[in-house]
């Protein structure tokens, strides 16, 4: 089995793709499923009485069930489709946060949140007069137990935590955070954008109140995301966006809303995205998370080792391998990451450079940007070798000018 063969773009563009943290490439199986949908099943789901529309509805709703099973939700009513993780997080902030936060309540986030799990909370805490507090990282780029226990208090009503940092690759101890937050009476919003592509998620076992992710970071098309929420919480929430299928009866001045999950899905949905996400889940399950972890573990361990040998770079990763996923941020000392990324690009190595939508995190480390290599199941040790030789090339170009 050669996984790379399923991803035509890697060959067509002859690239070393190390930016899966931004978005993954899509396997042929996903692309074909979307094609097949348009050639055989396309209609507006829920809207027509004819067979084709019912077929489209069935594909749509079956994928919802597939996702529920995939993350072990109790019911498929707990799976809401959205555009992406950002929209899911905004939905929670608006429909849960605005209505449940009072003056002097506290929202606690980690400093490593993506702006999408941070800016909406700034908005709702300002609106409600509640406070926004942060859990900071220690010098191992992790959030310690003490930090968790000192920041989550009786006043905390909502905790927002990314399962895996998109900059550091740190795997946060969300089991501990969720348990502790529940003990204090807070609900927990888990941003699973960077975890679910790489590790098995069981929302019941985690006891997460909300869990969000984007399809495009796990082999699916752009523009499809998921919000998981506990049914008893979702039931009590007001809708976020309105119109289309999310209503029951509409009168001139009043409207009653549909039940879950439709209540949170306004307007015609991205059925092609849902179909692609379903095919991506099939693909991941066919290979299996165990295998994915094995591949990534080999490649990422190798990358950690090889990068550690370069004394002229700074690495922003935890020394505790078991707490580190598939993202590695680094800088060549004295060289701006955009220059490094440009030089890597000329070698066909795609890495991201910048602040990775995590400005408060970078500021807390005292830097303004990094180069980031992120790995997925199609990456190999050869990709790491290309990365290393690209970094060496960049360093050699800059070496004689570097002023530290």
């Amino acid at each position, binding site marked *: 089995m050669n996984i790379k063969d399923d991803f035509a773009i890697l060959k067509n563009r002859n690239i070393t793709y190390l930016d899966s943290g931004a978005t993954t490439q899509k396997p042929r199986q996903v692309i074909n499923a979307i094609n097949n949908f348009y050639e055989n099943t396309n209609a507006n789901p829920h809207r027509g009485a004819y067979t084709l529309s019912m077929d489209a509805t069935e594909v749509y709703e079956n994928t919802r069930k597939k996702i529920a099973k995939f993350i072990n939700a109790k019911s498929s009513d707990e799976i809401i489709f959205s555009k992406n993780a950002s929209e899911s997080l905004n939905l929670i902030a608006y429909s849960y946060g605005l209505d449940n936060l009072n003056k002097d309540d506290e929202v606690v986030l980690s400093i490593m949140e993506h702006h999408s799990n941070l800016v909406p909370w700034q908005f709702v805490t300002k609106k409600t007069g509640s406070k926004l507090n942060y859990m900071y990282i220690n010098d191992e780029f992790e959030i310690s137990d003490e930090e968790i226990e000192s920041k989550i208090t009786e006043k905390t009503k909502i905790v927002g935590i990314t399962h895996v940092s998109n900059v550091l690759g740190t795997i946060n101890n969300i089991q501990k955070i969720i348990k502790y937050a529940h003990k204090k009476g807070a609900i927990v919003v888990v941003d699973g954008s960077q975890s679910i592509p790489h590790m098995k998620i069981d929302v019941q076992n985690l006891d997460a109140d909300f869990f969000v992710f984007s399809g495009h970071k796990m082999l699916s098309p752009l523009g499809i995301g998921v919000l998981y929420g506990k049914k008893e919480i979702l039931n009590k929430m007001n809708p976020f966006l309105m119109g289309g299928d999310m209503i029951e009866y509409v009168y001139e001045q009043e409207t009653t809303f549909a039940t879950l999950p439709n209540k949170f899905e306004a307007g015609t949905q991205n059925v092609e995205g849902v179909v692609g996400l379903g095919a991506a889940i099939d693909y991941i399950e066919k290979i299996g998370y165990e295998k994915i972890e094995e591949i990534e573990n080999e490649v990422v361990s190798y990358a950690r080792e090889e990068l550690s040998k370069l004394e002229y770079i700074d690495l922003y990763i935890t020394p505790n391998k078991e707490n580190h996923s598939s993202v590695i941020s680094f800088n060549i000392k004295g060289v*701006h990451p955009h220059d490094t990324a440009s030089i890597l690009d*000329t070698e066909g190595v795609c890495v991201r450079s910048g602040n990775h939508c995590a400005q408060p995190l970078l500021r807390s480390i005292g830097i303004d940007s990094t180069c980031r290599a992120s790995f997925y199941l199609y990456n190999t040790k050869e990709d790491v070798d290309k990365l290393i030789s690209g970094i060496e090339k960049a360093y050699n170009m800059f070496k004689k000018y570097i002023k530290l």
Partner: protein
Amino acid sequence: MDGLDEIYNDLIMEHSMNSYNKKKLDKADYCELGHNPNCGDEISLEVKLNGNIIEDMAFTGHGCAISQASTSIMIDTLKGKTVEEAKEIVKTFIEMIKRETKNEEDLEKLEDAIAFRNISNMPARVKCALLAWHTIEDMLNK
């Protein structure tokens, strides 16, 4: 493609890593901030005028090699020019980067800044090269 050496050449490297124009002026008449959110490039440009002539210029800030070198080289080019001449040079530079002019005679006016003519081969970096020039453009038009 490589062409990297054409872009990261000695001139650009020297200006980006060790610029003598990177300082604060004693007495600046105008100061303008430029920011490229894409890269996080940030510059603060200072200008001292003597009548209609740009008597002195300097910058502070941080960012990628392209943005910092482009700022420093621009300062070398514009110092001593009249405001009108400067506007003309800025316009020519922007046109060169956007590949809207190939007139060699015009391009000569750019002096060392002609070193950036191949930056359009790296579309992701065009904004970096233009940052200082757009910043001075705003300043001169005020």
